[in-house]
């Protein structure tokens, strides 16, 4: 049995591809034989090849003809597709490309398109005249009237709405009527989405629910009449996967219908009324340099000194941690065994300390000084409040952001959860504890027996137990702590596996739908949080479903392709519009598919196992603070995706062949399955792009921030300047004047914390125009502490963190995902070619001289 690289090396050898790293040669050799000594390649052919590729390079605006990735990308996406600045030029490029392709027919085609688009243009011209803001407020006032009615009338209204909804969802329509219905709904949605406010959002979700309900009703009642048992098996599987997504969609709408956006409550002026707080910083095997900044930041939190105690909970029992704790004047707790990992560690500390409240920070989550001021007010106002959570914020890129280059531009995976889901949960009093950056009241925590130890997601389970006892939880959506994101993709996946496994364990052992003490909405919110992690299997079903038709011609949906499109399209379009409106700031359209596709394979098995036997599984600590030194391709992680790519690619080729040469019936069905496969290939391509680990340049991650600073020069002059970014190792200053600052000059730089100024020794690292790079040297422990408190611990450190995130535009987002997918294949090709080249060299095949 040959391995894949060997197989491809064999192909390369027999096709005569001299250098497998050049995509050009692969394509050329598919059509043209390599020149032999006896019969050299004719002059006209190489000239024609050169000319053709020249025209293509020019027309497609390929900047690097050597790059396979760019060829692939430009075949599908125009160069101006992503950058906003060039956007206006798009139609021109497009028309030029279309003109090249169509030749003489171009003017006619253009005229036809122009006249066909006439009503749409008229419509959009009308749109600009509508005052959507006043329309939105009118809608709000209508809703206010409805909400002001007596209870019984509201019930009547809701009942009527439900009856109407069922009627709309179940009325059978012919294809033309369904088409009109779809168009009408789309037009209304396009109008409504321009209105500001939360009510239009609810209207859009209702539209989405109607479209989905119609599709679901039709799908279940009309399309499941399948032929053979095997078709029932695959068709049933697909339907189950779809039902899963419908449920998740509905629960998601419910969960994030109305984010509470809770504001902090001010504390009483009399500090004697403020409670005592224990700060827990649990650590197991993280290096001291990761834990230090967190301890320093915690020391800087504003709270009466006699009412706050900071504890390092060291499960690693390391002497250097103990020494550090003494030097930093914080407490140190170690236990003799490590049972129940982090939960056990916290529970042990709970027995030793006495504070009325416990604030927990993962050892790499640095709190800002205002953390307690922002959070504790709610505990004083609400006696039943047992836990308050704040967002987890990461100032370094996660593997997705680093490998795709989307950091601070496209909202990351966690953004949706902490930006919207937890805030939405808060409305239903079902925000749950996330293990860090949270405060818990000691009483309720002890009442439920401390942090839960039955499952590997002890945090969510603890919150569930407290909810069952009738306690409240709160969420404040203001970033009050920040940490490092997981370094590598494998680490990231490992962490998600743990969450998925743990949530499913809770679902099995302490099901939120059953048992005492929860409100209906709490049950639904918890259920969604847990079901959400079971997306692995359904995602794999979607990634392979079209193959059952393309490979075996199984009909797993009993419907014509056109009718299916008419039903499924409104479902997809409306849910995209609704989600884009609801989540646009926290998740861009089609990125959920990207994130899920990467994780699908890895969480499918653990969640299924946990569903069958929740006892299996252990806690894995996420490694942080490392450095990826070399660019590499994670072959191990991407193996399942390779297999899926190979399957989908084969399916795609079969589909193309079925269009033109063989078995050319059911063309529409073939096209639909081809589109589906193409979509799958794009998502898998993105997954592969994520698996290409790009090199990381800095050990300490820089945070962009403008803080006033004072630069003390050796000659006694003192300059007023401000920072551009900072890290634990150094900072970049903006200095307006042409000051001469040679490299390695010793300087002192001082930063302010409130009205206090702290200075740090540093040296000049580099100088570019107005920007001066500094790195710190010889910092004492006090200096390090002050540095953290002046930078990461500032109250305003993370206020503007999402300033550069781009608002979602579904079509732009689709093109972006497409581009990343193609980039993934570019990476794959390059890496594969390198491997093949190495293999060919190994086999000592003398390469023939490449064609000129």
């Amino acid at each position, binding site marked *: 049995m040959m391995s894949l690289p060997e197989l491809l090396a064999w192909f390369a050898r027999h096709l005569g591809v001299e250098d497998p790293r050049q995509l050009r040669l692969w394509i050329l050799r598919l059509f043209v034989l390599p020149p032999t000594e006896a019969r050299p390649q004719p002059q006209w052919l190489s000239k024609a090849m050169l000319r053709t590729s020249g025209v293509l390079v020019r027309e497609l605006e390929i900047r690097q003809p050597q790059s396979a990735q760019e060829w692939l990308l430009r075949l599908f996406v125009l160069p101006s597709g992503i950058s906003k600045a060039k956007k206006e030029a798009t139609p021109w490029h497009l028309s030029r490309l279309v003109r090249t392709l169509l030749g003489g027919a171009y003017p006619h085609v253009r005229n036809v398109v122009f006249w066909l688009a006439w009503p749409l243009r008229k419509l959009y011209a009308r749109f600009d005249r509508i005052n959507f803001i006043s329309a939105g407020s009118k809608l709000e006032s209508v809703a206010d009237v409805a909400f002001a009615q007596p209870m019984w009338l509201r019930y009547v209204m809701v009942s009527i709405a439900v009856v109407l909804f069922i009627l709309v969802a179940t009325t059978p329509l012919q294809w033309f009527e369904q088409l009109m219905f779809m168009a009408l709904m789309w037009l209304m949605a396009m109008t409504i989405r321009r209105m500001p406010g939360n009510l239009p959002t609810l209207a859009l979700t209702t539209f989405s629910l109607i479209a989905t309900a119609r599709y679901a009703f039709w799908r279940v009642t009309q399309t499941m009449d399948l032929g053979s048992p095997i078709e029932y098996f695959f068709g049933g599987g697909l339907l189950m996967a779809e039902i899963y997504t419908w449920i998740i969609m509905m629960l998601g709408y419910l969960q994030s219908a109305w984010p509470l956006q809770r504001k902090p409550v001010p504390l009483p002026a009399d500090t004697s009324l403020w409670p005592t707080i224990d700060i827990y910083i649990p650590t197991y095997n993280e290096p001291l340099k990761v834990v230090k900044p967190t301890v320093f930041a915690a020391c800087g939190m504003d709270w009466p000194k006699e009412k706050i105690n900071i504890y390092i909970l060291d499960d690693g029992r390391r002497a250097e941690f103990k020494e550090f704790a003494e030097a930093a004047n914080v407490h140190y707790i170690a236990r003799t065994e490590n049972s129940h990992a982090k939960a056990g560690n916290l529970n042990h500390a709970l027995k030793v300390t006495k504070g009325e409240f416990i604030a927990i920070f993962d050892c790499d989550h640095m709190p800002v000084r205002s953390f307690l001021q922002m959070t504790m007010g709610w505990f004083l106002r609400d006696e039943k409040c047992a836990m308050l959570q704040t967002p987890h914020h990461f100032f370094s890129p996660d593997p997705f952001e680093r490998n795709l280059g989307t950091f601070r531009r496209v909202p990351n995976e966690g953004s949706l959860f902490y930006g919207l889901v937890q805030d939405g949960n808060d409305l239903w009093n079902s925000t749950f504890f996330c293990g860090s950056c949270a405060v818990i009241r000691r009483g309720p925590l002890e009442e439920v027996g401390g942090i839960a130890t039955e499952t590997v997601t002890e945090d969510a389970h603890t919150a569930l137990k407290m909810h069952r006892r009738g306690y409240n939880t709160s969420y404040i959506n203001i970033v009050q702590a920040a940490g490092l994101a997981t370094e590598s993709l494998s680490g990231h996946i490992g962490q998600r596996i743990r969450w998925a496994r743990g949530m499913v364990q809770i679902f099995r052992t302490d099901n939120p739908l059953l048992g005492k003490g929860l409100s209906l909405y709490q049950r639904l919110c918890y259920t969604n949080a847990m079901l959400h992690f079971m997306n692995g299997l359904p995602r794999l079903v979607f990634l392979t479903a079209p193959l059952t038709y393309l490979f075996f011609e199984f009909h797993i949906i009993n419907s014509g392709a056109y009718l299916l499109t008419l039903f499924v399209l409104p479902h997809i379009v409306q849910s995209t519009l609704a989600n884009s409106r609801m989540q646009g700031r926290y998740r861009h359209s089609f990125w959920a598919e990207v994130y899920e596709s990467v994780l699908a394979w890895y969480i499918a098995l653990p969640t299924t196992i946990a569903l069958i036997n929740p006892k299996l599984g252990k806690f894995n600590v996420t490694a942080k603070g490392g450095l990826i030194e070399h660019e590499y391709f994670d072959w191990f992680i991407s193996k399942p995706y390779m297999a899926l790519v190979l399957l989908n690619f084969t399916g795609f080729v079969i589909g193309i062949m079925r269009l033109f040469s063989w078995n050319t019936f059911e063309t529409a069905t073939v096209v639909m399955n081809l589109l589906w496969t193409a979509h799958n290939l794009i998502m898998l391509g993105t997954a592969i792009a994520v698996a290409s680990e790009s090199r990381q340049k800095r050990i300490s991650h820089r945070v962009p921030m403008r803080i006033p600073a004072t630069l003390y020069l050796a000659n006694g002059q003192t300059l007023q300047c401000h920072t551009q970014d900072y890290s634990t190792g150094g900072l970049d200053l903006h200095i307006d004047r042409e000051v001469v600052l040679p490299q390695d000059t010793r300087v002192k730089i001082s930063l302010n914390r409130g009205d206090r100024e702290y*200075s740090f020794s540093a040296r000049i690292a580099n100088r570019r125009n107005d920007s001066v790079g500094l790195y710190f040297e010889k910092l004492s422990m006090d200096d390090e502490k002050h540095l953290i408190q002046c930078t990461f611990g500032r109250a305003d450190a993370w206020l503007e963190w999402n300033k550069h995130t781009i608002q979602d535009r579904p079509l732009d987002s689709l093109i972006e995902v497409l581009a990343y997918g193609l980039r993934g294949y570019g990476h794959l090709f390059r890496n594969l070619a390198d491997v093949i080249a190495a293999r060919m060299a190994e086999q000592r095949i003398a390469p023939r001289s490449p064609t000129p």
Partner: protein
Amino acid sequence: MFKIAVISANGGIGRTTLTAHLASLLAKRSQSVLALDFDPNNLLSLHFGLPSTELDGLALRAVRGQLWQDAAFSNADGITFLPFGAPNENERLNFGRQISADPHWLSDQINKINLPAAAIALIDTPRLPSIYAQQAINAADLVLAVVAADASSYAKLSPLREVLKQSGKANDTFYVVNYADAARRLHNDIVTLMQHELGDRLLPYFVHHDEAVPESLAANSSLADYAPHGQATHDLQGLAGWLLTRIALKT
């Protein structure tokens, strides 16, 4: 006219320099400024390019019974500068006795000056205790007490506050830290102590130690021109801005 007395309980902490630079920054903001040197050492005149000996001025004319109104100079920045003058030893003692008998002598004299109502008078003084500084305090609408973040300034903080309290000016006094240098170990400790004692009275505009300040004097150039991005320039601009707001609120 709004009168500001610049005082300190310690010598050598940049009181005169601060007065001169404040005057120049206020003048740059189109304020009509009178810089009045009420210090027999005549140090402020150095900042205005005048010799400190054989100098005409307020005290000299007053003790000789002459009119002193035309002893003032005007410089290119538009600052009116009235020197103390260089009386001989006897005259100086006589002058001292004369003003000791009349605690509001300086106040009365300034009121005679014909400057616009919106003008600002900055009065430089010798270090406390001093009858000259006392006169300036009595005359002032606002007292700017200059301190340094060092042990001796802190030690003299209580006597200084006592003097101001007895003059009834405690509520019109604000403290400004000069020669601030966070790189010095004691700096933050002393500042913390002072903040604790003075609260809001300690202005948040710490004037940093910056060699550009003496260098600009040597280069005979105003600080804002000499070191536009210097930290001390920045701090003094902040102080000048604060003073203008304060004056606008008070008048």
